[in-house]
Protein backbone atom coordinates (compact mmCIF):
# COMPACT_ATOMS: atom_id res chain seq x y z
CA UNK A 1 0.00 0.00 0.00
CA UNK A 2 1.10 3.54 -0.77
CA UNK A 3 0.26 6.13 1.90
CA UNK A 4 0.70 9.88 1.76
CA UNK A 5 0.03 11.77 4.96
CA UNK A 6 -0.34 15.56 4.89
CA UNK A 7 2.46 15.82 2.38
CA UNK A 8 3.68 19.22 1.26
CA UNK A 9 6.42 19.91 -1.21
CA UNK A 10 7.98 23.25 -1.92
CA UNK A 11 10.49 24.04 -4.66
CA UNK A 12 12.27 27.12 -3.26
CA UNK A 13 9.37 29.53 -2.91
CA UNK A 14 6.96 27.67 -5.18
CA UNK A 15 4.52 25.39 -3.41
CA UNK A 16 3.92 22.26 -5.50
CA UNK A 17 1.88 20.17 -3.05
CA UNK A 18 -0.14 21.50 -0.17
CA UNK A 19 -0.75 18.95 2.56
CA UNK A 20 -2.19 16.09 0.51
CA UNK A 21 -3.20 12.72 1.96
CA UNK A 22 -4.38 9.60 0.20
CA UNK A 23 -3.92 5.84 0.13
CA UNK A 24 -3.50 3.48 -2.78
CA UNK A 25 -4.56 -0.11 -2.25
CA UNK A 26 -2.56 -2.80 -4.05
CA UNK A 27 -3.85 -4.56 -7.16
CA UNK A 28 -5.26 -1.54 -8.91
CA UNK A 29 -4.49 0.80 -11.77
CA UNK A 30 -4.73 4.36 -10.56
CA UNK A 31 -4.78 7.50 -12.66
CA UNK A 32 -3.39 10.70 -11.26
CA UNK A 33 -5.08 13.43 -13.26
CA UNK A 34 -5.08 17.19 -13.25
CA UNK A 35 -3.94 20.17 -15.26
CA UNK A 36 -0.33 20.97 -16.08
CA UNK A 37 1.52 22.11 -13.00
CA UNK A 38 -1.06 20.69 -10.60
CA UNK A 39 1.46 18.49 -8.81
CA UNK A 40 1.10 15.10 -10.53
CA UNK A 41 4.76 14.58 -11.36
CA UNK A 42 5.84 15.80 -7.95
CA UNK A 43 3.57 13.22 -6.34
CA UNK A 44 5.06 10.40 -8.40
CA UNK A 45 8.61 11.53 -7.68
CA UNK A 46 7.83 11.57 -3.96
CA UNK A 47 6.49 8.00 -4.07
CA UNK A 48 9.52 6.83 -6.02
CA UNK A 49 11.84 8.43 -3.47
CA UNK A 50 13.50 10.71 -6.00
CA UNK A 51 12.62 13.77 -3.95
CA UNK A 52 11.75 14.20 -0.28
CA UNK A 53 8.67 15.92 1.07
CA UNK A 54 9.06 19.32 2.73
CA UNK A 55 6.49 18.15 5.28
CA UNK A 56 4.51 14.97 5.90
CA UNK A 57 5.31 11.32 5.23
CA UNK A 58 5.26 9.09 2.17
CA UNK A 59 5.13 5.37 2.91
CA UNK A 60 5.39 2.44 0.52
CA UNK A 61 4.42 -0.84 2.22
CA UNK A 62 5.07 0.89 5.53
CA UNK A 63 8.57 2.03 4.59
CA UNK A 64 9.55 5.66 4.20
CA UNK A 65 10.07 6.42 0.53
CA UNK A 66 13.71 7.33 0.17
CA UNK A 67 16.20 6.54 -2.56
CA UNK A 68 16.26 2.86 -1.59
CA UNK A 69 12.55 2.44 -2.16
CA UNK A 70 13.45 1.89 -5.83
CA UNK A 71 13.82 -1.80 -4.99
CA UNK A 72 10.02 -1.84 -4.74
CA UNK A 73 9.11 0.87 -7.17
CA UNK A 74 9.71 1.13 -10.88
CA UNK A 75 9.56 4.70 -12.14
CA UNK A 76 9.09 5.85 -15.70
CA UNK A 77 10.15 9.43 -16.17
CA UNK A 78 8.41 11.81 -18.50
CA UNK A 79 11.85 12.68 -19.82
CA UNK A 80 14.00 10.51 -22.05
CA UNK A 81 16.61 9.24 -19.66
CA UNK A 82 18.47 6.70 -21.77
CA UNK A 83 21.96 6.69 -23.20
CA UNK A 84 21.48 7.69 -26.79
CA UNK A 85 24.59 5.79 -27.96
CA UNK A 86 23.22 2.47 -26.72
CA UNK A 87 21.29 0.17 -29.00
CA UNK A 88 17.90 -1.13 -27.91
CA UNK A 89 19.52 -4.37 -26.83
CA UNK A 90 22.26 -2.58 -24.90
CA UNK A 91 19.64 -0.50 -23.11
CA UNK A 92 17.89 -3.66 -21.99
CA UNK A 93 21.26 -5.18 -20.99
CA UNK A 94 21.98 -2.09 -18.94
CA UNK A 95 18.66 -2.35 -17.17
CA UNK A 96 19.20 -6.02 -16.50
CA UNK A 97 22.52 -5.24 -14.83
CA UNK A 98 21.12 -2.34 -12.86
CA UNK A 99 18.05 -4.01 -11.39
CA UNK A 100 18.20 -7.46 -9.85
CA UNK A 101 14.46 -7.86 -10.32
CA UNK A 102 14.68 -7.26 -14.07
CA UNK A 103 12.83 -10.00 -15.95
CA UNK A 104 14.76 -10.53 -19.16
CA UNK A 105 12.22 -12.94 -20.60
CA UNK A 106 9.43 -10.44 -20.13
CA UNK A 107 11.56 -7.70 -21.68
CA UNK A 108 12.22 -9.83 -24.75
CA UNK A 109 8.52 -10.62 -25.12
CA UNK A 110 7.72 -6.94 -24.87
CA UNK A 111 10.33 -6.00 -27.46
CA UNK A 112 8.64 -8.43 -29.84
CA UNK A 113 5.21 -7.15 -28.92
CA UNK A 114 6.31 -3.56 -29.55
CA UNK A 115 8.16 -4.60 -32.74
CA UNK A 116 11.35 -2.88 -31.66
CA UNK A 117 14.55 -3.52 -33.59
CA UNK A 118 17.12 -4.67 -31.05
CA UNK A 119 20.09 -3.40 -33.03
CA UNK A 120 18.93 0.14 -33.58
CA UNK A 121 20.59 2.90 -31.62
CA UNK A 122 18.41 4.83 -29.19
CA UNK A 123 19.33 8.13 -30.85
CA UNK A 124 18.02 6.81 -34.18
CA UNK A 125 14.67 5.71 -32.79
CA UNK A 126 11.53 7.67 -33.55
CA UNK A 127 9.81 9.33 -30.63
CA UNK A 128 7.14 6.64 -30.70
CA UNK A 129 9.70 3.88 -30.47
CA UNK A 130 11.55 5.67 -27.70
CA UNK A 131 8.23 5.82 -25.86
CA UNK A 132 7.82 2.08 -26.38
CA UNK A 133 11.33 1.32 -25.19
CA UNK A 134 10.71 3.30 -22.00
CA UNK A 135 7.64 1.18 -21.35
CA UNK A 136 9.63 -2.01 -21.85
CA UNK A 137 12.28 -0.88 -19.38
CA UNK A 138 9.75 0.14 -16.75
CA UNK A 139 7.40 -2.84 -17.04
CA UNK A 140 9.98 -5.59 -17.30
CA UNK A 141 10.89 -5.28 -13.65
CA UNK A 142 9.13 -7.64 -11.25
CA UNK A 143 8.28 -5.00 -8.68
CA UNK A 144 5.09 -4.43 -6.70
CA UNK A 145 4.70 -0.77 -7.71
CA UNK A 146 4.99 0.78 -11.14
CA UNK A 147 4.82 4.54 -11.52
CA UNK A 148 4.52 6.08 -14.96
CA UNK A 149 4.75 9.77 -15.63
CA UNK A 150 2.97 10.64 -18.88
CA UNK A 151 3.57 7.34 -20.69
CA UNK A 152 1.32 8.39 -23.59
CA UNK A 153 2.10 12.04 -24.13
CA UNK A 154 3.18 13.20 -27.55
CA UNK A 155 2.68 9.79 -29.16
CA UNK A 156 0.44 8.91 -32.09
CA UNK A 157 -2.79 6.91 -31.56
CA UNK A 158 -1.26 3.64 -32.78
CA UNK A 159 1.64 3.88 -30.37
CA UNK A 160 -0.70 4.89 -27.57
CA UNK A 161 -2.86 1.88 -28.26
CA UNK A 162 0.07 -0.50 -28.29
CA UNK A 163 1.18 0.92 -24.95
CA UNK A 164 -2.29 0.55 -23.43
CA UNK A 165 -2.43 -3.04 -24.63
CA UNK A 166 1.02 -3.84 -23.34
CA UNK A 167 0.01 -2.45 -19.96
CA UNK A 168 -2.91 -4.87 -19.82
CA UNK A 169 -0.85 -7.78 -21.10
CA UNK A 170 2.28 -7.38 -19.06
CA UNK A 171 1.04 -6.19 -15.71
CA UNK A 172 0.06 -8.76 -13.12
CA UNK A 173 -2.53 -7.05 -10.95
CA UNK A 174 -2.40 -9.86 -8.43
CA UNK A 175 1.10 -8.76 -7.57
CA UNK A 176 1.42 -5.29 -9.00
CA UNK A 177 -0.05 -1.83 -8.65
CA UNK A 178 0.22 0.90 -11.24
CA UNK A 179 -0.01 4.63 -10.77
CA UNK A 180 0.15 6.76 -13.88
CA UNK A 181 -0.34 10.36 -14.84
CA UNK A 182 -1.89 11.29 -18.15
CA UNK A 183 -3.90 13.81 -20.11
CA UNK A 184 -5.09 11.18 -22.60
CA UNK A 185 -8.10 10.42 -20.46
CA UNK A 186 -10.30 8.97 -23.15
CA UNK A 187 -7.83 6.27 -24.01
CA UNK A 188 -6.84 5.44 -20.51
CA UNK A 189 -10.30 5.50 -18.96
CA UNK A 190 -11.19 1.81 -19.55
CA UNK A 191 -7.89 0.90 -17.98
CA UNK A 192 -8.29 2.69 -14.68
CA UNK A 193 -9.87 1.49 -11.46
CA UNK A 194 -9.63 4.76 -9.63
CA UNK A 195 -8.71 8.35 -10.36
CA UNK A 196 -7.13 10.88 -8.06
CA UNK A 197 -7.96 14.38 -9.19
CA UNK A 198 -5.44 17.00 -8.22
CA UNK A 199 -5.57 20.77 -8.63
CA UNK A 200 -3.08 23.42 -7.51
CA UNK A 201 -1.29 20.96 -5.23
CA UNK A 202 -4.45 19.76 -3.52
CA UNK A 203 -6.61 16.68 -3.91
CA UNK A 204 -10.01 17.53 -5.31
CA UNK A 205 -11.43 14.04 -5.31
CA UNK A 206 -10.65 10.33 -5.32
CA UNK A 207 -13.21 8.23 -7.16
CA UNK A 208 -13.74 4.93 -8.88
CA UNK A 209 -14.15 5.33 -12.62
CA UNK A 210 -17.17 3.02 -12.73
CA UNK A 211 -18.79 5.06 -10.01
CA UNK A 212 -18.38 8.24 -12.05
CA UNK A 213 -20.15 6.49 -14.92
CA UNK A 214 -22.96 4.99 -12.90
CA UNK A 215 -23.76 7.86 -10.57
CA UNK A 216 -22.94 10.86 -12.74
CA UNK A 217 -23.26 9.43 -16.26
CA UNK A 218 -20.10 11.22 -17.20
CA UNK A 219 -16.95 10.30 -19.03
CA UNK A 220 -13.71 10.97 -17.22
CA UNK A 221 -12.98 14.03 -19.36
CA UNK A 222 -16.39 15.59 -18.66
CA UNK A 223 -16.12 14.78 -14.99
CA UNK A 224 -12.71 16.38 -14.71
CA UNK A 225 -13.87 19.53 -16.50
CA UNK A 226 -16.91 19.70 -14.23
CA UNK A 227 -14.89 19.22 -11.04
CA UNK A 228 -12.31 21.76 -12.13
CA UNK A 229 -15.02 24.27 -12.84
CA UNK A 230 -16.48 24.10 -9.36
Amino acid at each position, binding site marked *: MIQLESVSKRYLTKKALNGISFQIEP*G*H*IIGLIGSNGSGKSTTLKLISGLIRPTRGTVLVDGEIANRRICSKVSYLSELDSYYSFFTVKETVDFYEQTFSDFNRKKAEEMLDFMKLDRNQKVKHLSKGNRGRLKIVAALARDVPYILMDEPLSGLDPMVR*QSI*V*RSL*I*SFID*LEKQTVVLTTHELQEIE*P*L*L*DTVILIKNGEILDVKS*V*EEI*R*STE*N*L*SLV*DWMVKEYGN
Partner: protein
Amino acid sequence: MAELFNTSAPIYLQLCDRIKNKIIRGEIGIGGQLPSVRDLAIDSGVNPNTVQRTYRELEEAGIVEKRRGQGTFVTENQEILQRMRNQLKQQHISGFVREMSEMGYSKSEMVEGLQNYFNKKEEKP
Protein backbone atom coordinates in the same frame (compact mmCIF):
# COMPACT_ATOMS: atom_id res chain seq x y z
CA MET B 1 -9.47 -3.00 -31.18
CA ALA B 2 -12.91 -3.56 -29.77
CA GLU B 3 -15.70 -1.03 -30.09
CA LEU B 4 -15.61 1.90 -27.76
CA PHE B 5 -17.68 2.10 -24.63
CA ASN B 6 -20.28 4.77 -24.20
CA THR B 7 -20.18 6.97 -21.16
CA SER B 8 -23.73 6.42 -19.98
CA ALA B 9 -23.15 3.15 -18.19
CA PRO B 10 -20.37 1.41 -16.28
CA ILE B 11 -17.99 -0.53 -18.48
CA TYR B 12 -18.53 -3.78 -16.63
CA LEU B 13 -22.25 -3.67 -17.43
CA GLN B 14 -21.57 -2.90 -21.08
CA LEU B 15 -19.24 -5.89 -21.19
CA CYS B 16 -22.01 -7.99 -19.59
CA ASP B 17 -24.38 -6.97 -22.39
CA ARG B 18 -21.83 -7.80 -25.06
CA ILE B 19 -21.34 -11.28 -23.66
CA LYS B 20 -25.08 -11.86 -23.35
CA ASN B 21 -25.50 -10.81 -26.98
CA LYS B 22 -22.82 -13.24 -28.02
CA ILE B 23 -24.57 -16.04 -26.18
CA ILE B 24 -27.93 -15.19 -27.77
CA ARG B 25 -26.43 -14.99 -31.24
CA GLY B 26 -24.86 -18.39 -30.62
CA GLU B 27 -21.29 -17.13 -30.97
CA ILE B 28 -20.67 -18.71 -27.60
CA GLY B 29 -22.74 -21.88 -27.38
CA ILE B 30 -24.50 -23.45 -24.42
CA GLY B 31 -21.82 -24.80 -22.13
CA GLY B 32 -19.21 -22.98 -24.20
CA GLN B 33 -16.10 -21.52 -22.67
CA LEU B 34 -15.60 -17.79 -22.22
CA PRO B 35 -12.19 -16.24 -22.85
CA SER B 36 -9.95 -15.92 -19.81
CA VAL B 37 -10.13 -12.69 -17.85
CA ARG B 38 -6.76 -11.65 -19.18
CA ASP B 39 -7.57 -12.38 -22.82
CA LEU B 40 -10.86 -10.53 -22.71
CA ALA B 41 -9.17 -7.60 -20.99
CA ILE B 42 -6.53 -7.38 -23.71
CA ASP B 43 -9.11 -7.86 -26.46
CA SER B 44 -11.42 -5.15 -25.25
CA GLY B 45 -8.72 -2.86 -23.88
CA VAL B 46 -10.07 -2.72 -20.35
CA ASN B 47 -8.72 -3.25 -16.86
CA PRO B 48 -8.66 -6.95 -15.86
CA ASN B 49 -10.42 -6.02 -12.61
CA THR B 50 -13.34 -4.77 -14.70
CA VAL B 51 -13.57 -8.06 -16.58
CA GLN B 52 -13.47 -9.90 -13.29
CA ARG B 53 -16.42 -7.86 -12.12
CA THR B 54 -18.29 -8.63 -15.35
CA TYR B 55 -17.76 -12.36 -14.87
CA ARG B 56 -18.83 -12.11 -11.25
CA GLU B 57 -22.00 -10.33 -12.30
CA LEU B 58 -22.81 -12.99 -14.92
CA GLU B 59 -22.03 -15.71 -12.43
CA GLU B 60 -24.40 -14.26 -9.86
CA ALA B 61 -27.13 -14.17 -12.50
CA GLY B 62 -26.46 -17.86 -13.14
CA ILE B 63 -25.60 -17.23 -16.78
CA VAL B 64 -22.05 -18.49 -16.46
CA GLU B 65 -20.31 -20.92 -14.14
CA LYS B 66 -16.79 -20.83 -12.90
CA ARG B 67 -15.05 -24.19 -12.82
CA ARG B 68 -12.01 -24.36 -10.67
CA GLY B 69 -8.82 -24.49 -12.69
CA GLN B 70 -10.70 -24.71 -15.98
CA GLY B 71 -12.22 -21.34 -16.63
CA THR B 72 -15.63 -19.80 -17.06
CA PHE B 73 -18.41 -21.52 -19.01
CA VAL B 74 -21.89 -20.62 -20.22
CA THR B 75 -24.50 -22.43 -18.16
CA GLU B 76 -26.27 -25.45 -19.60
CA ASN B 77 -29.44 -24.47 -17.84
CA GLN B 78 -31.85 -23.71 -20.72
CA GLU B 79 -34.32 -22.06 -18.40
CA ILE B 80 -31.88 -19.37 -17.34
CA LEU B 81 -30.79 -18.73 -20.92
CA GLN B 82 -34.38 -18.51 -22.09
CA ARG B 83 -35.12 -16.06 -19.30
CA MET B 84 -32.11 -13.98 -20.28
CA ARG B 85 -33.29 -13.99 -23.89
CA ASN B 86 -36.73 -12.74 -22.84
CA GLN B 87 -35.26 -10.11 -20.59
CA LEU B 88 -33.15 -8.70 -23.38
CA LYS B 89 -36.17 -8.62 -25.68
CA GLN B 90 -38.20 -6.78 -23.07
CA GLN B 91 -35.36 -4.38 -22.46
CA HIS B 92 -35.05 -3.45 -26.13
CA ILE B 93 -38.79 -3.19 -26.66
CA SER B 94 -39.26 -0.96 -23.65
CA GLY B 95 -36.40 1.24 -24.84
CA PHE B 96 -38.01 1.53 -28.28
CA VAL B 97 -41.45 2.27 -26.85
CA ARG B 98 -40.10 4.85 -24.45
CA GLU B 99 -38.29 6.75 -27.16
CA MET B 100 -41.26 6.61 -29.52
CA SER B 101 -43.63 7.81 -26.79
CA GLU B 102 -41.31 10.66 -25.96
CA MET B 103 -41.54 11.76 -29.58
CA GLY B 104 -45.31 11.60 -29.32
CA TYR B 105 -46.20 8.43 -31.26
CA SER B 106 -49.27 6.56 -30.08
CA LYS B 107 -49.47 2.86 -29.39
CA SER B 108 -51.42 2.13 -32.56
CA GLU B 109 -49.00 4.15 -34.67
CA MET B 110 -46.11 2.09 -33.33
CA VAL B 111 -47.83 -1.24 -33.99
CA GLU B 112 -48.90 -0.13 -37.43
CA GLY B 113 -45.44 1.17 -38.19
CA LEU B 114 -43.85 -2.11 -37.20
CA GLN B 115 -46.32 -4.09 -39.28
CA ASN B 116 -45.70 -1.93 -42.35
CA TYR B 117 -41.97 -2.25 -41.83
CA PHE B 118 -42.12 -6.03 -41.82
CA ASN B 119 -44.54 -6.16 -44.77
CA LYS B 120 -42.21 -4.03 -46.88
CA LYS B 121 -39.27 -6.17 -45.92
CA GLU B 122 -41.09 -9.33 -47.01
CA GLU B 123 -41.99 -7.80 -50.39
CA LYS B 124 -38.38 -7.27 -51.40
CA PRO B 125 -36.27 -9.90 -49.71
